[in-house]
Every structure is written in C-alpha cells, then in structure tokens.
C-alpha cells in the first residue's frame, strides 16, 4: 500500500515510503522529523502548517505528500542558513516582538517570506492580505506587521542600524546589546 517517493526539502533529497493518503504535513513532521512545521487545524484554515512549494506558500495539511514529488519544499528549518544567519524575516520577528507562543510563527514567517519574494515593498494593506491566511491568537498581529515592514526594509538594504542581525545565542537578534537597546520613550 505504501509507495516510495522522493521529496526535495530544504535542498536535501529524502526517500520515504508513504501511504498515498498521507499529507505533506504528516510526512514532514513524522517521517522527516521536521517538526518546525506545525499542525493547527488540519483543514487549511489556520496557516500554521504553511510551507513553500517551489517558492510559493501552501498549506501542507491540505497537500498530499505524493503531490510534492518533483517540487522543491522549503520549511522553516530551511529559512536560516546557519545558527547565526537567520532569514531577515526571522530576525525581525524576534526583534519586533512578533513572537509570543510561537505556534503560528513558522507558518507566518513563510507567508511573509513568500510575500516579500513577490512584493519587496508591500503596503500595509498588502502585508495584511499577505498574512490573511495565517491565524495568530497571541499577538494581535500588530508586531507581526511591524516585523514584515522591517524585514522588507532589511531585504532592500535599507536596514535601520539597530536591526542588524546579531548572535541569537547572545540573547537576541539586536546585536551586541542583549537587552535590546535603550529605553523606550
């Protein structure tokens, strides 16, 4: 009943035997142990399971693993190139306070990354539309919008100086000052 398929995920090739009804979400999480991709509803409503397929955002809970054959899958684990080289979207999610419980974060980041890959300078309204498939219950979205704006600036090379990527292990992405800079007005 199982069939062996070849999946390209984050640049690596995996050979897995899966029943044809297994979703991409299940195979990523349970077979490949890439648990950064979340399962929030299983119905494609919440976006927590968002991954990129050939650079385009899809809900991995609504896609069968066999459908991903021949495509390039990117999960949250594939966003950063090294421990201290986060994707600008990730770095700005941390710096802007866009993360609380973190469960929507991987999907939200991938939707944001997809948006910025298509539209490097989104308006506020376009940011909202770009994230409208991802639910968040903690943040009220405000700081997520801010993170995407800042990531957009960073990607265009107009980074505000305090938003440069730092060593996350040193307490945060805001560079050498782990307390995140000065007091707020």
């Amino acid at each position: 009943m199982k069939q062996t398929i070849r999946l390209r995920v984050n640049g690596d090739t995996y050979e897995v035997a899966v029943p044809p009804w297994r979703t991409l979400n299940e195979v990523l999480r349970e077979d490949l142990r890439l648990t950064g991709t979340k399962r929030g509803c299983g119905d494609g409503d919440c976006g927590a399971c968002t991954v990129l397929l050939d650079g385009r955002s899809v809900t991995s809970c609504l896609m069968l693993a066999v459908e991903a054959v021949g495509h390039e899958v990117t999960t949250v684990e594939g966003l950063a190139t090294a421990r201290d080289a986060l994707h600008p979207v990730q770095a700005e999610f941390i710096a802007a306070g866009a993360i609380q419980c973190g469960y929507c974060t991987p999907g939200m980041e991938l939707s944001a990354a997809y948006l910025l890959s298509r539209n490097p300078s989104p308006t506020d309204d376009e940011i909202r539309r770009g994230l409208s498939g991802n639910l968040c219950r903690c943040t009220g979205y405000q700081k997520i919008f801010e993170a995407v704006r800042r990531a957009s600036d960073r990607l265009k090379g107009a980074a505000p100086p305090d938003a440069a990527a730092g060593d996350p292990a040193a307490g945060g992405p805001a560079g050498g000052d782990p307390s995140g800079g000065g007091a707020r007005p």
Partner: protein
Amino acid sequence: MTSRPIGKDVPRVDGWAKATGAALYTDDLSLPGMLHGALLRSPVPHARIAHLDTRRAAALPGVKAVVVGSDLPAVKYGNWRLVPTTQDELALARGRVRFVGDEVAAVAAVDRDTAEEALALIRVEYEPLPAVFDLDAAMAAGAPVLHEATPDNVSVTRKIAFGDLEAGFGASDYVREDTFTVQAVSHAYLEPCATLAQADDLGRITLWTSTQTPYIVQCLLASTLGLRENEVRVVKPAVGGGFGGKMELRPWDVCAAFIARRTGKPVKFALSREEELATGRRRHPMRLRSRVGFKRDGTLMAKDLQVLLEGGAYNSMGPTATFLVGNFGAMLYRYPAYRYAGAHVYTNHAPAGAMRGFGAPQALFATETQMNMAAEALGIDPIELRLKNAMRPGDEIPDVATVGTCGFAECLERVAEMSGWREKRRRGPGTGGGKGLGIGCYSFITGGVFNWFNTPYPFSAAEVRAYADGTVHLLTMASDIGQGSDTVLQQILAEELGIRMQDVQMTAGDTAMTPKGDLGTWGSRVTLMAGNAVLEAARQVKEELARMVSLRFDLNVVQEVELKDGMVRSKFRPDRGIPFAEAVAMAQKANRGKPVVGRGTYTPRDMGLVTPTFSFGAQVAEVDVDRETGVTRVTKVYTAHDCGTVLNPMAVDGQVHGCIQMGMGYALSEELVMRDGKTVNASFLDYKMPGALDMPECEAVCVETHDPRGPFGAKETGEGPISATAPAIADAVWHASGYRATGLPITAEKLLAALDGDDSIAGERRAEASCAIPDPRPRG
C-alpha cells in the same frame, strides 16, 4: 554592554528557537516505540451507557490497549481540591455521558490510523436521557438532573454584600435595571492539546503535556492513578498558547499515563482542532441582571448584581468564575452599597472553564455598557461619569480587597486625550455617517491569593545557582505558555544581579527539577509571584557576594554594595570591587566548596480575598458601521493602562494587542454556536476570529504606577485589557448607529434586525429573563 534590562524592549529568550522551528511543543516530541492514542467521545448530550463492547477494537492488529471508564480508578478530579465535593469529573465516563464529546473510551495503537480504526470498532449503546441546554431549562422545576449530588443543577453559589443597598437605592435619583447576555467563546490557542506519557519500571510516570499548570497536573494525575505525588513528573514543553484553557488535568493525560503504565510503552495523545472547538473548554456564557442607582449628578449609590453562569456538564473552573464575576462587578467604581449573587448551573454542554480575564469580560461588559446607558440617560459624558466614580488608591471593597496603586482616573484622562474623545463624542448617536467611538474600562487581578487547589507549598518559588564562570542558572516551576514570562523572570534576575541576559540560563516548568511549588500560569500571577520569588533568591546571592567584597576591601559597614555591569562593588567607591564571577568563586571558596545558591518563595498573605494588587485601564474604540450590510469594522483602538511599572514595553504592548484581538472577537464575531447540545461551528472556517485583515490600528500608553507589591513595581497586563474591548466596541456601535447592544456578539444580523426595529433577533427579548437563583433543593 548594559546590565540593566528592566524597562527595556528585551527580545524573548525563546525567540530564536521559535523563529527557527527548533522549539519543541508536546506534539513535536516522540519516543522510540511510542504508541498513538485516540479518544472515543459521546455523540449524544445525555445518556446512560447501556452497553459497551471493545472486543473487536482490542482484536485489531496493532492495537495495544483499549480502556474504558471501569478500567480506571473511580477517582473524581477537579482543580477545587479544597472543596472535594466540587470535583466531579472522571477521565472516562462510567455508565453515563453528560455532553457531546464526553470521553467514553481510549485506545492506543502502533500508529494513528490504527488507533482511529479501532475507535470505529468500539460499540456503544446509549440509552438517551432528557438533556438541558440552557439556564432556564436546567433550573426549571423537575429538570433532568446531571449529577445526583446536585438535584437542582446549581453546583455553586456565591454572595458578596456590603453597604446598605436599600438606603443606596432609596437615595438614588435614577435607577436602572438591565439584563445582559454573553456567549461561549473558545480560547482557540493555536496549539491543540497534546500529551506524552512514559512509565518506568516501577510504574512512575513522566508526562510531557501542553499545560499552564504542571503542579496541578502532577497532583491530580497522581491521585487519579493511585500514585504518590512525586511518582509523577510533569514537564511543560513549549506551549502554543493557553489563555486559561490548559490549566486542568484532562482525560488524555490520565489515559496516556494509565496506558503507559499498563503497556510499558510511551503513549501520545494529540487532539484535533475539531475536538478542541467542539468539546473543549470555553468561556462561561452568562446572564447578568444589574440594577444600579445614581444621584442626579452621576454619583453611584448602589448596585445589585445577579449572575447565572452556564457551566456545562462539569464544574471545571466554574467555582472560581462564580466568585470572580462578583468581585469584578464591584471593581472600577466606588459603590457605597453592593450586592452580588451568582450561581453556577450545570447543562448538557461541553464544560466552560477559565479563559483570559476570567469573570471580568462578562462582568465588565455588563458594568461598562450599563455605565454608558446611564451616562446617556443622565446627560453626562461617559468619561466624566466614570471620573466622578472612579476608584482611587487606597479604596476598599469591604471584606474583599483593598486597592493599592491605581492609575484609573489618569487612564481615563489619557484615553480621552489620545482619542480626541471630547471633540468626536460631541455628536449624537447615529449622526456620524456610520462612524462612532465608545469607551470601556477594566480592572484585573495580579495573581489570585485564593488557594482553591489547597497547595501546601509556596505559591511560587525560585532557585538561583551562581557559578564561578559568571553564569547563573534560574530554576522555577513558573510556566511560560507564550506570554513571555521566561524572558521577564530572566530580566528580573539579570537586573538584580547586575549581569547580562546571556549570563542567565533557565530550567522551568518541570515538577521534578524545579523547586516546589508553583500554581501555574493563570490570573496574571507569574510576573508578580514568580518574579518576587526570583527577586528573593537573587537577593540571597547578592547578600553573599556583598559579604565577600566587604571583606576583601575592608568596606565601612555603612557602604552599600551594588551589583552592576557584571561587577560587585562599593557604590560609594566603584573602584573597590571585583567581577561577579570572581565574587562567586570567592564565596564558594569561603564556604569550603559549597555552591552559591539562593532560594526564594512567594505566598500572598493578609492581602484580602482576591489579589495582591489590581491593574486598571481605559479603552476607546472607533468603529465604522455599514448600515447596508450591518457589518461593524473596528478602525482604531486607544488604550491607556496602569500595569504598574513596565518591565518590558515590547512584551506589554504584545499583551495589550493580543487582548484587543480576543476582545474584538468576543464583541463582534466569535461564538460557539450550539444546537441540540452540539457545537455546530467546530472549525476555524466557521468559528470567526479576527484575522490580519480585521485588526484595527492599536495605540497604547502606560500610565505607570509603582506598586510596592510587584517586582520592580510591576502589575499585570496579560488579561485585564481584554475586558474593556467588547464594551468599548458596543458603545462605539451605539454611537455609530444608535443600536445599544446588551448581548454579544454584535453580529451583522443582529445589528440590522435591531436597526430595522426587530428586537427578537437582537436579544432585547431577553431583557425580562430572570437571573434569580431558586431556593436550593435538598441535596442527595
């Protein structure tokens, strides 16, 4: 390099792990040989189980265990351990089901598909019993009884009374009485509940579970399995939100542990979203009848509040809700006389539990809406009416609580300025071309002083281990469920020891590894209670290091030793000091190798019946009501709030914004719609939370107070603001359209019907509904 993180936008200590997908939530964990569990739930709201046959399920290849109620010890559980008669739940039904979703059987198999197939092979014959789905039916004479020990279906009643009510109303120039109704809503945390249990050779359990309250789960799980408390270890992995919905022992915890003990294999249960929405805990629907009296000048004279809470099939956190709603009904304003009577009523619905704001969203929707109605009738501006009656520092709710710091009046002034209230509100209702603005206010507890769990341990505890390499390790059972308490507790520690955030490591939420005790994350308690425990532990370390420096430099006894910038030094002569690491090494040497450890605890004592201190705030919402479609769009929300001294502005903002999202859903779109006992909108497609497109612009300012009971002056911010949003939006809808909602949510359907003069849909027909609590019937 700063060593003063308090008051700064410190990014979260778990930010990197969550941004990269490295953070591990319970369902991300797996162990070799792990079994997958699944739960069979009742499809009927009330029935006797006439016959239960699990043989075919047990015979299915790959199935390792099938468990029904009679297999488990018949130990009822519930968070109100102090009053065992309130503990009315069993993990699996024994002979009777009381709501659609009541757990009937559990299976564990080698994989999830097999477990689900096994569920379908279990045969249950239900003998239907009459069911009750609303307050009136449940409280009617001769109503079907859910629990024999509670023949009137009223499981808990509470009263609060102070002042001379009759005299207060007698002296009032204006008295009004209104009935408000609020609906069931879901926490809708993004991470569905999951649990993973592992047993050792002696049957002791380690349980990784998505919980806000590891200690409560530990104790109750031990009691249901007949184990000693410390034969259960509960570990809290990363938790994807809780909002009050993950603060109890749940059936899947019991089933996973029971099956792990029986099979010797690890067992995981992970709930689906449908299970969460259809059968999960929810905010109590309530009917509130409030009578309030004023002098002509707006002075409040008396309030009489009667509340019926629809609890669903079990008590869950209902007893606390029944008390708190009465407490919150007495907050915000100076009531010379106040009376509250509340009753918690069983129905055949999924049980309601604790949810963000716990009792306050309901109580304050009623209070604040009624204030706005009274302001209109008295011809007084709603903010002026509030200022006239606002609680001030030092105010007392007799026999209940004393208000400590209180920036409420200033919050009202600030929110009026920010929003341009006095200018914009001058126009009459329904005259702004669909635009309007409205106000709502809140006050909330900063942790509860009540000990319903009957813990014999401190309410919070912390251990700080300082090492000679300059690092410190903080251990506490306090549970970060997404709100950011790990970050704030580390800020507090780093600040007090004058070290950097990256010098701090932390172990939290593990009942075996972290000091006892901690009651968990609820009631906005963590920053104040665990924060004070951390402070006390840090101060012990500090004292020990100060002794070293005093000795080393022969400091005059009057000289203060400060820990700052990684140094331990004389404040008067900063050159007389040594690095933190060196001071720790010295102390350790002086103590003949004994590590430098501080231990702190916090237990509130002699602080009334409610909380060490209250937060306050005022919020103004601006809306745009489309007269054609009935759709209300919230365009901007202004908040001025007193959360004491702000420890992390970015985190505080995040809490306020999150409250607005949840409060806005409560106001306009969220409702678990019930039909014949079933939740009919059990998906995120049908359960409508505000999304990215719906959120208004949010502007917030902190009116800082310095609360002597909070660490560095802090009070709560995680729950209070949610209660202001719904009444503010409801008032704005009135200002925009002329429709005054006394029930939630304010859907387009209701709004249009009301504007077209049809009150039957809009909820006004409920205005005459009674909230009287019947005389108790004899208990069995």
